[in-house]
Structures are given as structure tokens and as C-alpha cells.
């Protein structure tokens, strides 16, 4: 029975945050501040580092016994690469860490860093995949035979035959330019040494337990001597999931100088040296039969993964996820793909909300629109013929799609959109030289996957499961200690709703404890749209165990059969009678009168959950108005119809969708990290890296279906990334629809005015 699940109760997180009472890493006072000296060149040999007289300046030579970061993938086609915490002999991108200086304030440290003289012999950098793959390209990592770090290839046995029998082949080459998932709060770390020899690292992290393991391994120290705390974290989007070498250095400095050391990254550092992502070129070819059904698909994925590999995901995450999930929601049986990850002299690429799926969805959705045009079908019609409709479905890469509603969500979005009317308006607008367009994107989002999925990737560190330690204290309040590490997702509220229903109390009596390795069980943190499904699943199991235990104790206290006890609204009742006892009284008795019951004392339950994974799905429809004189795009309307199974808190779900779509629109139209040909980064301020504001994001129309699948015990599927996945393809399809009268096509994102201008000029000539 659900009383709390499904309700849009207000988030427990918000009162402190909106009153300015959040606690962030940068709020902590520190004895010393560190500033990192970063490489001004993309590729070079460090000859000499000359710090100003009297300063504390740490370089690679000082880091005796410290290991390099070396994420591992257990695959024959993966080449592991190393990243020393500070440059050893060479620098590999603009922003690479060269030295660390200490000051009494952040400004003081920056003054000192400005005076450190770097003598670096610049070498020819490789900046993009074509030049990195050239025969005579310099190798970014000495010892590698070329610049390819991962090369995955497959072909289903029936592919060639299906290809040969196809009615026609449609080509589509898309380009996703480099992005940065900007959090409001840039990265920050504060390490405090105490006299017991222990260090507490407070930092902006999505995976506190893994940060602790990783840093302890690098510095060769016992994990027990390190506590990692993630306080309020102002957004992560993946940037704070991967290990920051800076964090390990801050811990090293705190141990070395036996004091507290702080680092608060500035926006320039974040844009140049925090993780980038989505630098992908994907070519797809679809073989369609005469009924416009996709019978075989070929893909070629080239990912520019930057200079280093992020821990724990490795440099293979984007190419391999594209490789595994390219077919998306379409029922294609035959599949061939080559996916390569290529190192270059750019900032390392790491997962960013959506991870490669915004690009692969763009590829598939542009392919579908091009095919529709070729067959003379409407975009919605070709999708009807190709969406998976029978579940479970096994994709050609072996992924199992659980019960979902690919077709139904699209039809729901189409009903809301009323395209017949829009298309009439589009025609009349063209007469007045206004160019309107509509674009559809359908996709499925793999979420909530446990260790089997990560093991299949061959990850040296195999994440997946989550553990929850649940305790009801003598006052009848529940504390749930979780290994997930929310940073804006509202888990303190949604998990409390799940636990409240399962135990029979109000959510206000549930406290979720997270983000502190001293207070929570080992877990994998928050990423990959997993926390509600997996940590929520573990919470449900533990809460059901607690429920059973409370019923057993209540049955003794009420002298009734255990099966007759009902827990609700904080009360245990013998069903159908007025014999009751408060759950808080059962709790107190469980501790203070434990001798009365044949139970272990207290009320603690621990549970873990490690599911195979599930797929949520959605359709996005974007309506745009393209000003062909200025090449500006205005989004007139944006519809989302999504199905993420049971909605635990609809308001929080809609918030996730809104934020995701805003980032998707940003990817589609505005944000781009740009390097020049010398390897210098040109987008180091928010005046150059254009994040959309409230003016640029239209109001969203969000609609839900709730298909329950047994792949998730709480019934909810993950959806944290979906907004970013569908929006770029919907917007690009809409722009292409608007530009049809000019015969112009654009398959690159962001669709900046410059790219639209070029596309229009290319069409004219």
C-alpha cells in the first residue's frame, strides 16, 4: 500500500539550500591554500620549474612513492594509460598539472603561482581524431604504437546478407563537438590533518567511498586513515564522479605539512582542466527494406577522449557505450560497428550526464529522418515501423530491454503536439519568410544497472550494487545510511518516501545519511541514473525487513498473531480491532526491553541490491523558429513524454527532466569547448562557453506513462540523464525541418549560428 510514494511532497533538502544555509566545501576555513601551476602548452617537455624565492612549490620530484592514476579495463583491445599527479617529464594538454604552490589565501597562492617560471619545450600537439590517426602523428603517450586506446569491433553473422537484400542504404554522419557539464559549484577540496594522523577530505564528490579507495591507493596509505566527506554539492553531472588528481594532491599536502589545505577551483580551471566530454563523430548507415524497416545497421564511432583516462571509468566509456547502445529503441537485428577511442592533447574526457547517448541518439534520429524523407514518409511513421514493441527485447549487442512503452510514449507526445495543425502553420509561415520546424526524438535510457553490466565492460573496478544500513532508534525515527551520494537529486526525500511506506511511518521520521565514509556503508555513489533504482531498492528491502521485525515484536507486545499486525501511520494495529501500539513504543521496547523478545537487540537492518538494469524511455518533440537572416534559433515549444516506471515523487521527476532538457538544449545550440590549432583552449570563461539562461529555455510540457517492469523492485526506472539524451536530436531534427525549403542540412551540434550559416551557404552553392 502506498501512502507516500507517488506524491509530490516538498524536498527535505530545500529549506537549508534556499535560505543560504547549505554547507559547501568552500565554506571551510583552511590554514593554507593551494594553487596549481598548469601547463600553458598542449604538448611539451618540462625542462625546468623555477619557483619564486622562499615559496613552497611542489613538483613531481617531491611526490616520492606516489603512484600515477591508471584506470584499468580488462579487455584485449584496451591500452591502459598513466597520469602522474604532477607532470613527470611531459605535459599533455593546456591545463595539465605541473606544480602546486601554497599561500595563506587563495589570492596569495595565485600571486605566487603567477611567479613560477616554466621552461617547457613545446612539441607539435595532436588536437583532433583525424590528425591523431594520421600515419606520422606524434604519439601522446610514449610507448603506445599509435593514439588508439580502445578499439572495439563486432558484426552479427547475418549482417552482410541483410545488407545485400536491403531496398536502400541511408547514410548519416553526425558530429558532437566537445562539451563540459558545468556545475554551479566548481570542484573544491579541503583536507584537514589531525593529530591522530588521520586526514578528513571534504570535497565535491559523487563517489566518496571510491575517492577514498583511490586516493589511499595512490598515496599508499591505509584507507582507515582517510575520511572522505561530500557535504552539499552544487551539481556534478559526472565531473565530480571521476577522480580529480587535485584531490589526491590536497590530501598529500595535508599529510606532508600536517595542517589543513584548501583548493577551490575557479571557473577558468574548471573549463580547461576539469573533465570534458561528448567529443564524438558517429557515422551510421542504415539498410532499410522496402517497407522502410531498418534491417541492418552499421556504425563507426570515433571518440576524442583527451590526454588521460578518468578513474574509474577509463577512456573507453564513451566509445564503448556508443558501441553497445547505438541501435537505441529500434528493433534492428543485424549490426556491425567499429568504435575507437583516440587520445589527443586535450583535456581528458569523462562521463557527463547522458554519456555518449546524446550523440548516438542524434545519429539514429537524424538517420530516421533522412530515411523518412527518402521513403516519402512522415518522421513519426518511420518510427512507428521501427520501434521495439515486444518485450523483453534482446538487442544485437545482447542488451535486454525490459518492459517499456516506446511506441506509446511517442503517440502520447504526438497527440499533445498536434502536428497536423503545426504543419499547416509551417506552410503559411514560409510565405511570410518565417521558417518553423518540428523535430522528434525517441530514445531509451539504460538505467539502474548493477555489477553484471559493469563487469561485462571489463572494468577493473566493477561498480554496481548498493548497500543500505537502516536503523530505527528508540524514539522511533529511522536513519538510513546509504552508499549513494546525492548532490541535487532529492534522494533524501524520495528514499524517505519509500521507507515511510514500507515501515508505516511518515517520511519526516526518516533521515537519510549520505556522503561521509565514516557514517555510511561502502557504496558507489551517484551516477548513471542509478541511485533511486538501486539504493532505493536496497532501502525497500531493508525497510521490509524492519517491517517484519516490528511486526514480530508488536505481535508479542499485543499478544496477537504476527500475520495480523498492520503497521500504518506510526501505529501497529491488530487487524480489524482497536488494539494498537505506537511504532515508537515498539522501538523503545526493542532497545530497552530487548530481554522480552527472542530477537537480537535493537532495530538494525542491512540490505544490498544489485539489479541487472532497466530501460526507461521517452519521446521529445521540439518546435523551432529559425531566423535565416541571423541564423538564430528560438525554441517555441518543447514536449516530453516519458516513461520511467513508477514515479516516486512526480515533482522531483519533472525537475530532473527540466534540468536535463536544459542541458540538452545547451548542447544542441550553445555550449562548446573550442581549442585552436596550437592546442590553446579558447573557451575559459562563461562569456565564451555559452550556457543558456532562463531566457533561452522554453517552458516544458511534460507528460508521463508509468509502465511497471520487474527489473526494478521499487517499480521506478532511472531518468536522471534522459533530458540530455533526447533534446539535442529533437532540436537538430527541428532545425533541419525548418531549413528544408533551402535544401540545407546540419548534422553537427551545437547548431551554432555559424554552422547554420555555413549550411545555408553550402546549400546555395
Amino acid at each position, binding site marked *: 500500500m502506498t501512502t507516500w510514494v507517488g506524491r509530490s511532497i516538498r524536498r527535505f533538502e530545500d529549506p537549508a539550500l534556499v535560505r543560504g544555509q547549505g554547507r559547501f566545501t568552500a565554506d571551510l576555513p583552511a590554514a593554507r591554500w593551494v594553487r596549481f601551476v598548469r601547463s600553458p602548452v598542449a604538448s611539451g617537455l618540462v625542462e625546468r620549474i623555477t619557483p619564486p624565492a622562499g615559496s613552497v612549490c611542489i613538483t613531481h620530484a617531491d611526490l616520492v612513492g606516489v603512484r600515477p592514476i591508471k584506470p584499468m579495463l580488462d579487455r584485449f583491445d584496451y591500452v591502459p594509460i598513466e597520469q602522474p599527479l604532477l607532470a613527470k617529464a611531459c605535459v599533455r594538454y593546456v591545463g595539465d598539472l605541473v606544480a602546486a604552490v601554497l599561500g595563506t*589565501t*587563495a*589570492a596569495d597562492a*595565485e*600571486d605566487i603561482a*603567477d611567479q613560477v617560471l616554466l621552461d617547457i619545450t613545446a612539441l607539435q600537439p595532436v588536437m583532433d581524431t583525424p590528425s591523431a590517426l594520421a600515419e606520422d602523428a606524434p604519439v601522446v603517450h610514449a610507448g603506445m604504437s599509435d593514439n588508439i586506446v580502445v578499439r572495439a569491433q563486432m558484426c552479427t553473422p547475418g549482417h552482410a546478407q541483410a545488407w545485400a537484400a536491403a531496398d536502400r542504404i541511408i547514410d548519416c554522419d553526425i558530429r558532437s563537438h566537445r562539451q563540459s557539464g558545468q556545475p554551479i559549484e566548481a570542484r573544491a577540496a579541503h583536507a584537514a590533518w589531525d593529530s591522530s594522523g588521520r586526514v578528513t577530505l571534504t570535497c565535491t564528490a559523487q563517489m566518496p567511498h571510491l575517492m577514498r579507495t583511490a586516493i589511499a591507493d595512490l598515496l599508499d596509505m591505509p584507507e582507515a586513515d582517510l575520511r572522505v566527506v561530500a557535504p552539499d554539492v552544487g551539481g556534478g553531472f559526472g565531473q565530480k564522479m571521476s577522480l580529480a588528481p587535485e584531490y589526491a594532491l590536497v590530501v598529500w599536502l595535508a599529510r606532508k605539512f600536517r595542517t589543513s589545505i584548501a583548493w577551490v577551483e*575557479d*571557473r*577558468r580551471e574548471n573549463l580547461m582542466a576539469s573533465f570534458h566530454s561528448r567529443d564524438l563523430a558517429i557515422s551510421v548507415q542504415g539498410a532499410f527494406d522496402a517497407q522502410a524497416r531498418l534491417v541492418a545497421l552499421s556504425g563507426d564511432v570515433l571518440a576524442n577522449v583527451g590526454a588521460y583516462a578518468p578513474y574509474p571509468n577509463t577512456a573507453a566509456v564513451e566509445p564503448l557505450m556508443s558501441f553497445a547502445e547505438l541501435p537505441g529503441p529500434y528493433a534492428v537485428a543485424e549490426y556491425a560497428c567499429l568504435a575507437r577511442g583516440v587520445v589527443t592533447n586535450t583535456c581528458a574526457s569523462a562521463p557527463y550526464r547522458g554519456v555518449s547517448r546524446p550523440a548516438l541518439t542524434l545519429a539514429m534520429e537524424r538517420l530516421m529522418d533522412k530515411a523518412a524523407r527518402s521513403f516519402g514518409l512522415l518522421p513519426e511513421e518511420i518510427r512507428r515501423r521501427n520501434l521495439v514493441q515486444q518485450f523483453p527485447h534482446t538487442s544485437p549487442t545482447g542488451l535486454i530491454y525490459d518492459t517499456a512503452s516506446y511506441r506509446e510514449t511517442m503517440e502520447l507526445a504526438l497527440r499533445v503536439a498536434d502536428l497536423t495543425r503545426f504543419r499547416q502553420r509551417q506552410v503559411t509561415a514560409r510565405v511570410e519568410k518565417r521558417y518553423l520546424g518540428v523535430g522528434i526524438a525517441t530514445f531509451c535510457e539504460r538505467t539502474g544497472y548493477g555489477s553484471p553490466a559493469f563487469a561485462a565492460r571489463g572494468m577493473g573496478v566493477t561498480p554496481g550494487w548498493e548497500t543500505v544500513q537502516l536503523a530505527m532508534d528508540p524514539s522511533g525515527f529511522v536513519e538510513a545510511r546509504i552508499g549513494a551520494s546525492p548532490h541535487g537529486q532529492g534522494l533524501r526525500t524520495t528514499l524517505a518516501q519509500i521507507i515511510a511506506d514500507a515501515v508505516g511511518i511518515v517520511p519526516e521520521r526518516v533521515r537519510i545519511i549520505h556522503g561521509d565514509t565514516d557514517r555510511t556503508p561502502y557504496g558507489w555513489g551517484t551516477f548513471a541514473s542509478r541511485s533511486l533504482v538501486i539504493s532505493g531498492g536496497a532501502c525497500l528491502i531493508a525497510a521490509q525487513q524492519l517491517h517484519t521485525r516490528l511486526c514480530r515484536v508488536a505481535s508479542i507486545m499485543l499478544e496477537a498473531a504476527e500475520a495480523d499486525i498492520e503497521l500504518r501511520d506510526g501505529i501497529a494495529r491488530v487487524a480489524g480491532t482497536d488494539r494498537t501500539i505506537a511504532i515508537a513504543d515498539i522501538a523503545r521496547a526493542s532497545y530497552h526491553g530487548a530481554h522480552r523478545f527472542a530477537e537480537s537487540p535493537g532495530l538494525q537492518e542491512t540490505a544490498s541490491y544489485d539489479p541487472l538494469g532497466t530501460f526507461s524511455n521517452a519521446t521529445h518533440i521540439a518546435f523551432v523558429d529559425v*531566423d535565416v*537572416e*541571423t*541564423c*538564430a534559433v528560438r525554441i517555441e515549444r518543447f514536449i516530453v513524454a516519458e516513461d520511467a516506471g513508477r514515479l516516486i515523487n512526480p515533482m522531483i521527476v519533472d525537475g530532473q527532466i527540466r534540468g536535463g532538457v536544459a542541458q540538452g538544449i545547451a548542447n544542441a545550440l*550553445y555550449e562548446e569547448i*573550442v581549442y585552436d590549432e596550437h592546442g590553446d583552449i*579558447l*573557451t575559459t*570563461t562563461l*562569456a*565564451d562557453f*555559452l550556457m*543558456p*539562461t532562463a*531566457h*533561452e529555455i522554453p517552458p516544458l510540457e511534460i507528460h508521463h506513462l508509468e509502465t511497471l517492469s520487474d527489473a526494478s523492485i521499487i517499480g521506478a526506472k532511472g531518468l536522471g540523464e534522459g533530458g540530455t539524451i533526447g533534446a539535442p536530436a529533437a532540436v537538430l531534427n527541428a532545425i533541419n525541418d525548418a531549413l528544408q525549403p533551402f535544401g540545407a542540412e546540419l548534422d553537427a551540434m551545437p547548431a*551554432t*549560428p*555559424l554552422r547554420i*550559416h555555413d549550411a545555408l*551557404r553550402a546549400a546555395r552553392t
Partner: protein
Amino acid sequence: MKPSSFTHHEVGSIDEAVAALARFSAEGGRILAGGQSLVPMMAFRLAQPTHLIDINRIPGLDRPRLEAGELVIPACVRHAGFHQQVIPGPLGDMLATVVRHIAHVPIRNRGTFCGSIAHADPSAEWPVVLVALDGVVVARGVAGTREIPAAAFFQGIMTTALAEHEMLTEIRLPNAAAGQRYGFCEHARRAGDYAQAIALAGWRISEGVIRQARLAIGGVEPTPRRLPAVEALLDGHAPNDALFSEVADAVAHCVTPMEDPQVSASLRRDLLRATTRRALQRACA
């Protein structure tokens, strides 16, 4: 992104400001007005002034006034002061239209009209207004006061005729007679961004034809400028769309557009053509 260290001087009068400039300008002293351009540059360490001469507390500089047919804008009038008409009539209306394109409200609350002129960003709005109207810049140094005509003021990207030791004390704009019409248009990537092309047109209509046409552009070349040769195409003609398209083409052809990673010369030329035509149309609306 923390500024390097500096000494902050709060001055109580223009005389004190000028004296402080005389003393510190040679070693990197600068006026601090609204701080909305200078402080970000200091955070990026693109500017590392050693002394800041803060004019915000000087009394009497925060209100525009009408004096002898001119709108006088002293050094501390904020952008936000123009949200409402500063004077009744077409000039006040035009300024109230233009200001809505400058940054966002919090920035307009601090940034000053004169600071924007002194800063001379090629993509800023107020400099276009100044040259379109042939306003006057009043500068004071220890040696005295001088008046610099708008056409001679802007010399390059963030370079002006103002000497290092001079303070810009006020701007004078000729007031517009009733019947004066203005049309303004700019193109920016996002709401509140610096413009990538700006056009401001102005004229009177008498006997159905355009008289005393003015057309100034910004955001395209290192400095804003009036285009007298193009204005001549408007004068004496009845306003109509064909004429505006012809003028917009002429404008697009007479500029040498700046390039940056976001805007090629060719796109910028097209942006200018579109903004010019729209500004001309708006002057008729």
C-alpha cells in the same frame, strides 16, 4: 581568478579623483566606476591595477539633467537609471529601449553609462548611441577640462582619446525635438550578451520623406561609427522596405567585420544587414 592586490582609494570629489589619477595613473592607477567591466578583468588578471580610485561616493554624479538643450549624464549614472525615461520625448524613449539590451538587471544596477563609454568595448550599446547623436565627452585632468566630440573619441578596441590621467566627468547628448524617430536593433547570442551587430537609425519625416537621417553601427568593427554615405541614401526618400533593403545591403558592404570563434566575417556582415534593416523598419513603427 582572484585579483592581484591593489590599494583602494575612495574619493569625495571630482577634484580629488583627478588629483589621485595624477598621482597614481602612471603606476597603474585607474578609476573604478560600476566595476562591471573592470572587476571581471581583474578577476581574470587581464587588468592588474595597483590603485583603484573609487568614484562611487562622489555626491551629485548619479542623476542625468537637461541643460541648454542637452542631456547631461554625469559619471555615476547607472544603466538602470535609463529603464524609465530620463527625459520625456523621443530621446528618453530611445535610451529606455537600448538599455534593455545591456547585460542583465544586476549588472545594470551597478554599471554606469560613462564607464561603458570609457571602457569602449566595440560591442557595447552606449557608444553607438554616443556616435549616432554626435554627443560630447567631457574629460578633466589636472591641467583642466576638455570636450571631445564623439567622432574623435573611440580609437580602437578598448582604446579612446581619454588620457591616462583624465577622468571622464560627463557625457552630453543633444536632446531630440518632438517628431524625431529612432529605430534600434541588435543581435546577440543570448539575452543580455554583448551584441554581435548593432544598428541605430534616426530621422525626422517631413512632407513624407526622411530628413536628417542618422545611422550608426556597432559590434562589427573595432569602433562604432556613423555612416554618412549611407545616410545620404535615406535623406529625401519616403521610407519603404525596398529602400531599407538597399540601405542594409550598402551598410553590409561598407564594413570590414571583426572575426571571432563564434562569428565569421561573412556571418557578421549578414547580421549587420539584418539588424540594419530591422532598425530602419523600427524607426517607422
